[in-house]
């Protein structure tokens, strides 16, 4: 959370000043003004380049030249797939001298199923995906939501439909869209949702992800900076008030019908184990009973020693009261048993515990449904955000709603009608800004989930508007936008410029906000790990299914519905499948992910940090991931005629320079296979390996 160290006094003065302004009309937010499509010369090439060049000329910046082919290929692969290119892909691309060589690769990668995997991870950050979150109801089966996002991106589901599925997939004509509602259901902790978690979370997550507005700030009071009242917050919440979590069974009719038998069988197996335990404990019951009698007052003891049939009702009450003191427990038995009995007893007890931990369940997924009773109930504002203090009644609505919104049928439809309308300037701007950020590291507006007054203004408003209008024209096709962006000259620029030019540009734009060169940046957690495993030749690129457990995450069962094989056992899958989440009592974010700035999904993450730290360096230098991968990579390099050449292409997507080749060969000289492991380790410890070039 971002923290302002403003002294309290100053804060109050500022707050009072802002409050005083309240009466004066504020200028409309830039993000709410209509999109103006800039005029462009005909035949000027990719409009992105035209609009960026305008800004750069205005600023006096001189752009970098085109990057080398090998660099471009690695950039495209890491950006669009999150994986480095194979040596074969490198060779093919370097050999292809045709003018279409680049666009052919772009089209191939955008149609590669791994593209959906890569961009799903970006979206899941924004939407707050977590496998585990403080005992969330939707935990079993939540991965179906993740897999829906992957599939939707691969099928290039238009963005407006993508958003509709997340907000109201339960109403969609396409039955698969129900999986997108894991987004809504994931907030609930109980099937009755008494604390309205689904509705509250829906407001917060939808407004930040699809509107880039901090509507959440208006939960307890009117927004202090943006034109969002507390009433707006609760009006938007009223859209979701009728919703309850809804369990959808994912089994055949036959499996469901047979379930009671399976359950009965499971209970019978428990009884059988219990009977074996009783045989061992029975002889000790008397002994423990006698011991427990010493804890009791004499009169109570007398009652216990009486024939149960002869006890008065008063005496029976006394027995009931003291029962917990007298009944022996497992650990007491262990204390008094013979050692060999303890061993047997413990073994049986373990068997029982294991069995109880995995009751047979019907696979299911949690969606939402409209509850008729809730739909008929009135919605209220909560004073100060306190759920025990009901305020005025509110009608369904949302911030910035036009006067004449008609709520017919499901309330969410009216909202979606406004939100996803081609003329809603916010909708397309927010989306294209995110896509831009994922290609270039920063959005055109640097606060992708805050387009309000506390957010940052776009550095190139004309460019953002052109992209937004183009997105609408292209019927919200995300792949079309990706293609447009990565085929621009801007995207193909080198990340390196001559020193003089660097100095001159840096003097004007030190942060490279105007992209006078390609912004080299650290790869994210998933891409680094996937690259290591791919170099080792062990990466499993199969798509979808349960998440696997990070190595420092304890096996954890779902309290409400334990599931056998809750985790995938294949830990060599892509990083998106590495389970993550939050829990009050234990760490659920693998240390690897947190080391490289991945979030736990508890709150949406608009932009990951990109820290570069000594512990990261140490992890790659000495950690087991790279150690093991080095051994495997060495085995791959051994049969190659020229292991240095092959190693560079395999790991870095380019042949070595003559100087690099000499350095590597001098290390390997005469040492045979022994040093191939060291060489492999070196390739994965190069800075170049962890950067998008």
């Amino acid at each position, binding site marked *: 959370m971002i923290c302002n160290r403003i002294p309290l006094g100053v804060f109050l003065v500022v707050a009072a000043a802002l409050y005083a302004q309240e009466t004066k009309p504020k200028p409309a937010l830039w993000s709410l003004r209509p999109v103006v499509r800039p005029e462009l010369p005909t035949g000027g090439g990719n409009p992105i380049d035209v609009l960026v060049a305008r800004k750069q000329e205005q600023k006096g910046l001189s752009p970098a030249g085109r990057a080398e082919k090998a660099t471009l290929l690695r950039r495209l692969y890491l950006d669009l797939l999150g994986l480095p290119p194979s040596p074969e892909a490198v060779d093919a691309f370097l050999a292809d001298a045709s003018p279409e060589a680049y666009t052919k690769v772009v089209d191939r990668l955008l149609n590669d199923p791994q593209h959906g995997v890569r961009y799903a991870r970006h979206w899941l950050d924004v939407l707050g995906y977590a496998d585990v979150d403080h005992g969330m109801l939707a935990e079993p089966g939540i991965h179906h939501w993740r897999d829906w996002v992957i599939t939707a991106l691969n099928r290039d589901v238009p963005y407006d439909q993508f958003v509709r599925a997340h907000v109201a997939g339960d109403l969609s004509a396409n039955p698969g869209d129900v999986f997108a509602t894991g987004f809504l259901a994931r907030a609930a902790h109980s099937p009755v949702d008494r604390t309205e978690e689904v509705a509250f979370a829906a407001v917060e997550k939808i407004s930040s992800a699809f509107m880039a507005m901090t509507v959440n700030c208006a939960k307890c009071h009117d927004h202090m900076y943006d034109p969002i009242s507390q009433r707006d917050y609760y009006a938007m919440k009223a859209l979701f008030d009728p919703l309850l979590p809804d369990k959808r069974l994912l089994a055949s009719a036959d499996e469901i019908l047979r379930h009671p038998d399976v359950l009965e069988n499971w209970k019978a197996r428990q009884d059988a184990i219990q009977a074996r335990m009783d045989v061992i404990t029975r002889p000790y019951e008397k002994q423990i009973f006698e011991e427990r009698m010493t804890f009791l007052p004499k009169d109570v003891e007398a009652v216990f020693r009486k024939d149960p049939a002869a006890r008065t009702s008063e005496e029976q009450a006394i027995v009931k009261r003291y029962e917990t003191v007298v009944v022996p427990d497992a650990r007491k038995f262990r204390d008094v048993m013979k050692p060999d009995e303890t061993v047997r007893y413990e073994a049986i007890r373990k068997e029982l515990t294991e069995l109880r931990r995995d009751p047979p369940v019907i696979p299911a997924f949690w969606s939402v449904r409209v509850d008729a009773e809730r739909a008929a109930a009135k919605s209220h504002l909560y004073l100060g955000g306190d759920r025990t203090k009901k305020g005025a009644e509110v009608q369904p609505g949302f911030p910035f709603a036009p006067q004449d919104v008609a709520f017919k049928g499901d309330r969410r439809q009216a909202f979606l009608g406004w939100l996803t309308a081609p003329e809603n300037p916010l909708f397309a701007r927010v989306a294209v800004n995110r896509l831009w950020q994922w290609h270039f590291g920063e959005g055109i507006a640097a606060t992708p989930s805050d387009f309000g007054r506390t957010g940052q203004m776009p550095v190139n408003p004309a460019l953002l508007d052109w992209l937004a209008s183009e997105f609408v024209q292209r019927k919200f096709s995300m792949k079309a936008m990706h293609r447009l962006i990565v085929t621009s000259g801007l995207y193909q620029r080198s990340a390196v410029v001559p020193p003089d030019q660097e100095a001159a540009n840096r003097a004007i734009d030190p942060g490279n906000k105007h992209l006078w060169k390609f912004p080299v940046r*650290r790869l994210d957690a998933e891409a680094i790990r996937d690259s290591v495993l791919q170099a080792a030749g062990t990466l499993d690129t199969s798509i979808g299914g349960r998440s696997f457990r990070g190595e420092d995450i304890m096996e954890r069962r779902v309290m409400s519905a334990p599931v056998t094989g809750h985790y995938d056992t294949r830990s060599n899958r892509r990083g998106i499948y590495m389970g993550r989440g939050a829990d009050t009592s234990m760490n659920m974010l693998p240390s690897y992910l947190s080391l490289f700035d991945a979030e736990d999904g508890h709150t949406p993450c608009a932009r990951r940090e990109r820290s570069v730290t000594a512990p*990261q360096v140490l992890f790659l230098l000495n950690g087991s991931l790279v150690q093991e991968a080095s051994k495997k990579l060495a085995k791959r390099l051994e049969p190659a005629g020229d292991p240095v050449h092959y190693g560079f292409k395999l790991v870095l997507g380019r042949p070595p320079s003559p100087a690099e080749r000499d350095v590597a060969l001098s290390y390997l000289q005469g040492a045979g296979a022994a040093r191939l492991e060291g060489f492999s380790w070196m390739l994965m410890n190069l800075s170049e390996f962890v950067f998008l070039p």
Partner: protein
Amino acid sequence: MNFSNPLSAPGRRAFMRRMSFGVGGAALGCLWAEDEKFLRAGSGTHFAPKVKSVIFLFMCGGVSAMDTFDPKDNKWAGKMLETLNSNNGKPQLRPVLHIPRVWTRYGKAGTPVCEWFPHIGGVMDDIAVVRSMYCHEVGHFPACWEMSTGHRNRLFDHPSIGAWTGYALGAANKNLPAFVNMGRPSAPAQASGGYLGVQEGATPFQAGDTPLDNLKLPAGLSRVERDRQMEVLAKLNRQFHEQHAFDAEVAARVRGYELAGTLQLAGPELVDFSREPEHVRKLYGVGEPETDEFGRQMLLARRLAERGVRFIQVCHGGGMGNGKWDAHDDVADHGPLARQTDKPIAGLIRDLKQRGMLDSTMVVWATEFGRTPYSQNNVGRDHNPHGFTCWLAGGGVKGGIVHGATDEIGYKVAEKPQYVTDLQATVLQQMGLDHKKMHVVVNGRPLHMIEEGTGPIQAILG
């Protein structure tokens, strides 16, 4: 065995943030900064500090006061008592348990201590026992949250007291973090930087071969070979590093290599106890099976205090589940836990004293709540937030005194009630901080570290 450490996520994040450089211009990590200017602007004490370091011992699970430092008469044993923490709002009747403890009076004031803590008994003249602590929460995680952050309200991501001290005072040693945690906490809140930022959370240290992960070379690799590899690696990196010398993230990685090297050299020294004299290691119980683990943590705590770490938290019995001190089944379960900690804690206090560090180092022994006088299951006790015991030593605390009291069965506070934040306010005051002035503005809203309670427990301070 690989345990899940609730700390590792925020902790590692914090540590690496402290160790990031150059990104965005300013040095983000005060950890390695070479001069005072990196200490946070506007931070500092409100009045002259008496304490340089706090060693906060958190006994996870809830220690029974009437079985440790708050003896009660057994005349109530077996009588039925109406419970306050009831099921479904209905009070229940439960029998008061017999307390099978042997009490010995220690020190000049003759403070009674049970047979489980003979070594702590031996340093009773340095300890002020507060028998009148209370909190509100009945569950472990909420109570740990309350004890660590001073708040029950979970709407805001409140930071723990260690984070507050680091935030306010910065790091005294530029090579070490301000807030360190050893042992596994019960709840992440105990080590959380909360809304102060992940960088204020505790850095997890361990008293093993290295204080941090990945410091040691992989097995089977010689130092000589690694040095050779690093040399070649540097050559292969040169072009990329030169080409991107102006790119902040690449520059940060260049620094990262250097720091990794420094850490690999300095880290093992921190946890290398071989230069500690035999008698000192013995004092902490290092090398004895029961006390070795906690003894090492106490010894490392002293070494961290010597090196200026502000807040050293050591969690005992935490991690998975509710905490090991959570004696629902049998209070006798406290026995082994007490044996693990008794000698090391007493050793720490004696060692600090013999080095002249006790006046400037405050040791706090705390737990999230106490236990009920009545039976919950068999011979165990339930959670009791209504009255429990914590104690303090050093750092200007009067030794050999007892403050406050519970009622005659040890259920509720009877005299001088002290809310958990009073303990925190006491710690802060001795560190030179006024708890009433500790607030920050988060998303436009002022949040205070302490809102409840009566302030520092002046009666126990010299």
